[in-house]
């Protein structure tokens, strides 16, 4: 690793001194600031930058350093313009690379990945980038006109060049003028002055993205503040007053240490009271560059030479140099800088002449240069990703879209193991006495066959559809709705134009012009998009209102032979068959609790769905839990419901995938097959028979296994189908699956084989109808 040594220089008098601090400047000498750099202790003053404090003690500074706070990992990369604060601990950023010191104020775009980033959306009439004389004067003028004004300043001090320039404004010294204007702006309620904020990118005419670093000047990290604040500032007018940047001359070795830009050198001398070097040469291409020489002379210091690249140097420059006693080399150029790490000498020659034997060697320890100046501007965002590290921050914050149902807290109390499915935090299972999720799920699924199980349905997608034209829309999307009577439900399959099945929904007719659709959470977006497209395709806006009401309702499913008995003891309404036939529902009140009760069994066996308004869902839950104790009510999670779905042979999202048709899934007669979706892949059930043959527990079937003929040939190639859902069925005591199988229904009763992709696991399975638990087995289970 490169070591950074304090470099000592000889002054004109020949004495060695590492001290580059001079009198004056805007630093507060009454407030010394201790800090550490590369493991060594130093001391600067309040108002110093890290670079100025180091340079004052003769320490070269690399371009970037990493900021460390006690006990923390490197939090961010800073430029050398980092302001000094008590006990700042910093180190050289690049191991083994000693990088040239290019002091400046480039935005520090690197931030640790774990940094807390906050976005702020600011609005103003006028945004002013930079707080130099132009910026402050403009801010005052706009604020006095009654406008909302935001001033962003990348430095920790407002003032820009006013902090180091000596040109008077309106008859006042720059410092006095700055203080007077700032005092007025600070009390104006419509003015916001944002320091430590760098304008990063301009997007369009009115939007500027800026970054603010609220933490990087604090000794102790403030836990309430973000590390980085991205401000998206929208303003009708943006004034760029970010000052100027020096252009540099091309010459050999111009990356040596000790070579500075003019504006920065001025800032070092006049603001931070630090000499860039004791023997300083000035290399300029414009008269304004002589300002540094004037500043040094005012402090009793004289540059060793001025090299002026212009062919015609104005008389005023000649007079200045003559009177100051500074050798002037007009129409000369620097050919090369010499030295090890730091400049020791520059070789200059007459511009336009053969340099051989005509070179002049100037001994110096620093060279300040400015070929000309260009105004600083905010770069424009041309296209997304053009400046990736910066444009990424122009995007706003996105919250985790984790949804929690109204029974989430009640489930947590019931020791549920939660998992995230389709963006919902759902109870996967309710283990008891140290059970694993798998064992708990088997117990819960079995309870749905033998007793009564309760499962949360609140996350099911729900769409409310009302209006005189609602029925026509549903007819177009699904078909078959006209015959659905009020108070009844029916399953429908949403298909695309070519016949591919997109989603399965349960349709409820609440009133002649009022419908509700419930569906799996993962299908909600598909159904809503499809319906919205159909509405948008109408020439005349249809009289209907489609609203997602998922969050309005909380509900549970009661499954099992004892479900009816439980309900009869819990709710005042009789749920006798004659009052509530299958696939029918009723709305009623229970102790002012609005209840919607439906007799429905989409899994095998008896079942009910009970909904109430979401805010009352836990009351319903607790009521049923209490009443269910006598019936041995078991809570069932999503894993158990998935087992019940596979046992019942109901197609899920892996079977209803846009490529299968209603006929493939066994939901429509085969003779209705038509179009490009005509397919030979048909939904079937499978059950493992391996253990019957080998007399040991069957290896598990798994989703994605390829199906092969059972004729004894090697299971290779594309196969004849694929397993789409699989589980262990506790009621059947074997591995079962749903599969899409070529000519599936014709193969019912035959033996085939399921194999993993690597061919290591091959299991014999028997093809069955999708529902693997016929009625007689249900009774047995």
């Amino acid at each position: 690793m490169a070591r950074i040594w304090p470099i000592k220089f000889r002054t004109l008098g020949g004495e060695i001194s590492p001290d580059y601090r001079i009198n004056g400047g805007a630093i507060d000498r009454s407030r010394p600031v201790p800090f550490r750099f590369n493991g060594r202790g130093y001391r600067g003053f309040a108002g110093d930058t890290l670079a100025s404090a180091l340079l004052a003690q003769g320490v070269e500074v690399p371009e970037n350093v990493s900021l460390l706070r006690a006990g923390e990992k490197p939090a961010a990369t800073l430029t050398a313009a980092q302001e000094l604060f008590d006990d700042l601990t910093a180190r050289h950023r690049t191991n083994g690379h000693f990088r040239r010191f290019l002091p400046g104020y480039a935005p520090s775009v690197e931030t640790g990945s774990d940094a807390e980033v906050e976005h702020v959306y600011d609005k103003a009439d006028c945004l002013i980038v930079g707080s130099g004389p132009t910026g402050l004067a403009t801010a005052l003028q706009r604020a006095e006109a009654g406008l909302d004004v935001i001033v962003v300043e990348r430095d920790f001090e407002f003032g820009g060049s006013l902090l180091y320039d000596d040109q008077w404004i309106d008859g006042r010294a720059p410092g006095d003028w700055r203080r007077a204007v700032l005092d007025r702006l600070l009390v104006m309620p419509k003015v916001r002055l944002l320091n430590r904020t760098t304008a990063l990118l301009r997007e369009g005419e009115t939007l500027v993205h800026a970054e603010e670093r609220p933490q990087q000047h604090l000794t102790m990290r403030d836990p309430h503040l973000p590390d980085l604040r991205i401000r998206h500032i929208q303003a009708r007018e943006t004034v760029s007053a970010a000052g100027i940047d020096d252009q540099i001359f091309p010459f050999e070795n111009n990356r040596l240490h000790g070579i500075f830009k003019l504006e920065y050198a001025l800032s070092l001398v006049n603001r931070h009271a630090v000499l860039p070097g004791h023997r300083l040469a000035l290399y300029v291409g414009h008269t304004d560059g002589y300002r540094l020489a004037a500043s040094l002379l005012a402090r009793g210091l004289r540059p060793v030479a001025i090299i002026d690249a212009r062919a015609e140097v104005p008389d005023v420059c000649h007079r200045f140099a003559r009177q100051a006693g500074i050798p002037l080399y007009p129409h000369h150029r620097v050919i090369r800088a010499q030295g090890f790490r730091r400049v020791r000498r520059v070789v200059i020659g007459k511009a336009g002449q053969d340099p051989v034997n005509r070179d002049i060697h100037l001994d110096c320890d620093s060279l300040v240069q400015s070929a000309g100046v260009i105004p600083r501007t905010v770069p424009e965002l041309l296209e997304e990703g053009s400046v990736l590290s910066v444009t990424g921050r122009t995007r706003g914050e996105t919250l985790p879209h984790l949804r929690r149902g109204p029974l989430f807290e009640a489930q947590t109390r019931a020791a549920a193991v939660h998992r995230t499915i389709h963006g919902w935090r759902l109870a996967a299972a309710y283990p008891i006495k140290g059970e694993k999720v798998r064992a708990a799920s088997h117990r819960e699924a079995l309870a749905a066959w033998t007793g009564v199980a309760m499962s949360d349905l609140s996350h099911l997608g729900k769409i409310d559809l009302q209006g005189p034209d609602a029925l026509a829309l549903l007819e177009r999307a699904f078909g078959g709705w006209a015959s659905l009577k009020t108070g009844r439900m029916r399953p429908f399959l949403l298909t695309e134009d070519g016949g591919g099945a997109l989603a399965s929904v349960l349709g409820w007719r609440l009133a002649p012009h009022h419908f509700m659709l419930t569906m799996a959470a993962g299908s909600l977006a598909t159904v809503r998009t499809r319906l919205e497209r159909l509405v948008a395709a109408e020439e005349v806006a249809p009289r209907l209102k489609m609203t997602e009401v998922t969050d309005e309702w909380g509900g549970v499913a009661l499954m099992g032979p004892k479900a009816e008995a439980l309900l009869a003891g819990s709710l005042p309404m009789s749920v006798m068959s004659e009052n509530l036939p299958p696939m029918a529902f009723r709305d009623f009140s229970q102790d002012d609790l609005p209840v919607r009760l439906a007799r429905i069994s989409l899994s095998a066996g008896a079942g009910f769905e009970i909904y109430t308004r979401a805010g009352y869902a836990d009351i319903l839950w607790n009521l049923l839990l209490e009443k269910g104790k006598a019936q041995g009510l078991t809570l069932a999670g999503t894993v158990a419901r998935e087992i019940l779905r596979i046992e019942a042979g109901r197609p899920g999202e892996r079977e209803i995938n846009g490529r299968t048709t209603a006929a493939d899934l066994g939901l429509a007669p085969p003779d209705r097959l038509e179009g490009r979706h005509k397919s030979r892949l048909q939904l079937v059930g499978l059950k493992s028979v391996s253990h019957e043959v080998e007399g040991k527990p069957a290896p598990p079937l798994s989703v994605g296994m390829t199906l092969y003929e059972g004729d004894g040939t090697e299971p290779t190639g594309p196969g004849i189908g694929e397993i789409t859902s699989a589980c262990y069925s506790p009621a059947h005591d074997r591995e079962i699956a749903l599969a899409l199988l070529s000519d599936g229904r014709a193969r019912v009763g035959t033996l085939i084989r399921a194999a993993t992709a690597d061919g290591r696991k091959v299991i014999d399975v028997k093809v069955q109808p999708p529902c693997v638990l016929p009625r007689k087995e249900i009774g047995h289970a």
Partner: protein
Amino acid sequence: MPDRNSALRGQRIHGQFGNISKEPGVTFREIKDFSYLEITLWDWARDSLRSKLAELLGIGDLPDTGDSQRLKEGRLLHLADGSLAYLGAAAPADILEVAITPEEGCVVPLGHARCLLRLEGPKAVALLRRGIREDLRDTAFAVGQVMTTDIGGIGVLLLRPDTAKFDLLVPRSHAIEVWRWLTRRAAPFGYEVL
């Protein structure tokens, strides 16, 4: 009616938090019992229903789009063309549900689908500016105005009942994420949960 269960149950803890060295910049209050109805008027019945609604609610005329009208027990919000909402106590809500026939329009109760948070205090605007892109200055979003917007991609409805007071209607299932975001961003200002 039974007590409504909060969507923030287990999350909303009363007290002062964040930077408490000064007066809290923001105060949060969850309003648990309220009615929120979305009212849609079909195009052809819009004019007749306007006057019918105004008469029913005892106001001169419906508010302009993006504005709201204070009622005796709530507020009528004009969200978009032909789209209104009622936010307030339950009694007028019941009347509205009965008064609007399917031929004129429809009413969708969504009070349980939303979590209603009231934000007050001198830093309420500063807090909301950390998540809401729209212009919240007094001139652009005046007292009484309403907007549908989003916080971090989650759709919310924002109402400004007073200069330093905002009502935020958040989808119930996203309420915890929004609540966590609000309290995290309010910490630098100091906040109080009532």
